[in-house]
């Protein structure tokens, strides 16, 4: 299985992700050098923020527990081999509806989950930032769409999103940086079905190149996006913000697992303890940013408890780890007379956000969902069929021979923030001696109504698109919440800038900030928030407010 044993980003250089065997110069800091920002995690939140802060002139060290991949050299076209891309440290998953973790939603390595994401780059529905006051459910965010809109644009520009000229939902926007990709067969099934039942659909805006950029060539439609892009067409954080961050003077410290944030007597964080090259080290820092995603961020804050903060850091409200959300993801599959061959091109190329934007009477639930065309590869498809249909023996082998005639749809379905859905830490320790996390998750009644409604919608579209012998599967995607931002210290973990209410030099910058989950993929919103945080921190520094 794909793995890298020793750190690569050492001795004043880091891997050049664009040139096999080559290196780029990288500024390196000593542990005793008090850097402006120590960032934990280099994914959509941490990697993006590391770039923004370094370009603003701050000294930055960003830590990642996983390797610094060289996509052109490391990545094979193989589902099983690429298993090394996922976070597989021990975790417990429970509750009435335990969530599958690992490859389903957790990345490991520089670039984080963006290395294996499906590149869907959608903006939040503007009203979702005021879900409670505008739509009557969930919570309001402490930030508005207007405030975030320029940062969506910045993120889309940085990732050179390929998208349609007239995306039919949301506020009117300027054109995407690059032209949309042609839609593959599963996407055209969605299109056909939507047109026949009279709802809108669109090609998806995607973070994979439709024309050359620098040393990266356009997407060749190999279809392995969820297992790492071996051509660099995918605009992951690893090949976009990370090279920019390094060029601007940031250090990326790979294979460096952060175990604890240290607190000073004055109530400010003094730095962090990290494990690298077989031993523990301590990096001094003026500010610490936690960007480990919705499980590892709360876990680190809880595991950093000390005499001064016996319940963990930033946890006066008792909210750290609570209100964790996922996207529900039932799917509907059908068999088609024609050959679909769903292994080609990015797995999701077409979408309908009809039920995100329509607030009509046919909805018997709060919130929304989008659904996308799908493209599982051989292993993923076989496991989906076997587990969901309980199928095995010759029946399974025979069913699998229809793979090329299958297409399906899957929702990204909003779930409610619930206090009992949370991250806690166990007595059991991981390989570093750190208490392992437990995720507890149960769907609410509203979540279940939403899923039921979505299955009806997907069946209607897939059937209208020509699908036969429809069946339903059960899946989930994404993690959000756990350190929500807000306007009220008693009701949130951090403020709208991601800054802890109680520890002024401790920040959070990742999907755990989300107060609600929305009905689209979270990465672009995480990156927009990170871009905004970078600007806000620079402004505050200029005013002496750090």
């Amino acid at each position: 299985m794909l793995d890298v044993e020793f750190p690569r980003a050492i001795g004043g250089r880091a891997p050049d992700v664009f040139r096999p065997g080559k290196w780029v110069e990288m500024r390196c800091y000593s542990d005793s050098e008090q850097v402006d920002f120590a960032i934990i995690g280099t994914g959509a939140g941490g990697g993006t923020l590391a770039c923004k802060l370094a370009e603003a002139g701050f000294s930055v060290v960003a830590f990642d527990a996983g390797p610094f991949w060289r996509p052109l050299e490391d990545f094979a076209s193989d589902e099983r081999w690429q298993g090394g891309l996922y976070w597989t440290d021990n975790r417990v998953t429970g509750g009435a509806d335990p969530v599958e973790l690992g490859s389903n939603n957790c990345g490991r390595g520089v670039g984080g989950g963006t290395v294996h994401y499906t590149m869907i780059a959608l903006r939040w529905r503007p009203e979702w930032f005021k879900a409670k006051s505008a739509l009557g459910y969930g919570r309001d965010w402490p930030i508005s769409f207007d405030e975030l809109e320029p940062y969506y644009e910045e993120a889309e520009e940085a990732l050179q999103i390929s998208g349609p000229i007239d995306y039919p939902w949301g506020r009117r926007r300027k054109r995407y940086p690059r032209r949309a990709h042609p839609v593959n067969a599963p996407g055209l099934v969605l299109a056909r079905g939507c047109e026949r039942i009279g709802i809108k659909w669109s090609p998806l805006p995607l973070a994979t190149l439709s024309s050359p950029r620098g040393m990266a060539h356009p997407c060749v439609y190999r279809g392995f996006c969820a297992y790492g892009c071996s051509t660099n067409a995918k605009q992951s954080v690893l090949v976009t913000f990370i090279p920019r961050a390094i060029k601007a003077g940031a250090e990326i410290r790979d294979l460096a697992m952060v175990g604890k944030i240290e607190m000073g007597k004055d109530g400010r964080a003094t730095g962090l303890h990290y494990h690298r090259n077989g031993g523990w080290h301590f990096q001094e820092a003026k500010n610490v940013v936690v960007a480990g995603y919705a499980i590892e961020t709360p876990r680190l804050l809880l595991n950093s408890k000390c005499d001064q903060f016996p319940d963990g850091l930033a946890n006066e409200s008792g909210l750290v780890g609570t209100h964790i959300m996922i996207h529900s993801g039932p799917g509907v599959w059908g068999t088609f007379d024609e050959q679909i061959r769903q292994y080609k091109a990015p797995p999701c190329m077409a979408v309908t956000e009809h039920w995100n934007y329509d607030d009509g009477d046919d909805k018997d639930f709060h919130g929304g969902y989008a659904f996308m065309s799908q493209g599982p590869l051989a292993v993923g498809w076989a496991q989906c069929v076997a587990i969901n249909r309980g199928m095995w023996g010759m029946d399974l082998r025979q069913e699998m021979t229809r793979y090329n005639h299958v297409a399906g749809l899957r929702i990204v379905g909003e779930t409610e923030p619930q206090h009992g859905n949370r991250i806690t830490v166990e007595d059991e320790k991981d390989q570093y001696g750190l208490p392992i996390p437990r995720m507890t998750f149960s769907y609410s009644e509203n979540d279940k109504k939403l899923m039921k409604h979505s299955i009806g919608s997907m069946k209607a579209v897939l059937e209208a698109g020509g699908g036969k012998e429809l069946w339903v599967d059960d899946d989930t995607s994404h993690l959000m919440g756990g350190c929500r931002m807000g306007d009220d210290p008693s009701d949130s973990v951090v403020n709208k800038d991601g800054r802890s209410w109680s520890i002024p030099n401790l920040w959070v910058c990742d999907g755990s900030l989300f107060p609600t989950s929305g009905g689209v993929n979270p990465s672009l919103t995480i990156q927009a928030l990170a871009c905004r945080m970078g600007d806000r921190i620079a402004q505050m520094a200029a005013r002496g407010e750090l």
Partner: protein
Amino acid sequence: MSEFKTRFPDYDVLDKWDSPSWNDQTRGAVRERLEEVPERHFLSAAQWSLLETIVDRLIPQPDRAEPVPIVPWIDDFLHKNETPGYRYADMPPMREAWQRGLDAIAAEARKRHGKRFEDLPPVDQDALLTDVQHNRVDKQVWGDLPAGGFFLHHLLKQTVGIYYSHPAAWSEIGYGGPASPRGYARIGPEERDPWEAREVDVA
């Protein structure tokens, strides 16, 4: 047993080994799978033999002189303790789940039939496995191990995952397989690049 029929009798994904659809990284990964099948390290000889029989029911390969190896790779990830990155709250750690689950299937067979699972006729083997899948098992034998959870999330998921990681399985379902650096030029319905599987009518 019904006869297995593929729609892709003249397709072998390995024919692309030296083509622009495969690169050195992928050849390395697949070569290991084909040529370096691991020895037994973790399971006992009895557990290994039992698992061979179970796997042969989950993925029967009567059409092959040399079946795709599955048990060696299960033993290998157990030996290396390569977990999927989570365990369900009602399940013990991965290695313990496999040890206890296999031993429980063996004990269940002895209790019901007075025989080793391996010595049962296939129809009884399938009936027993179906009962395990649906939690119709002897509580005294299984203790607090969820039989259906072990069957679906460990036994079946891994067996199927390993089988469909093999080029022989890719070929029989007409899957394109590795696709770097070339990828695909034709991606619409009914479109096929010359390096993709040609489907024949098996009806």
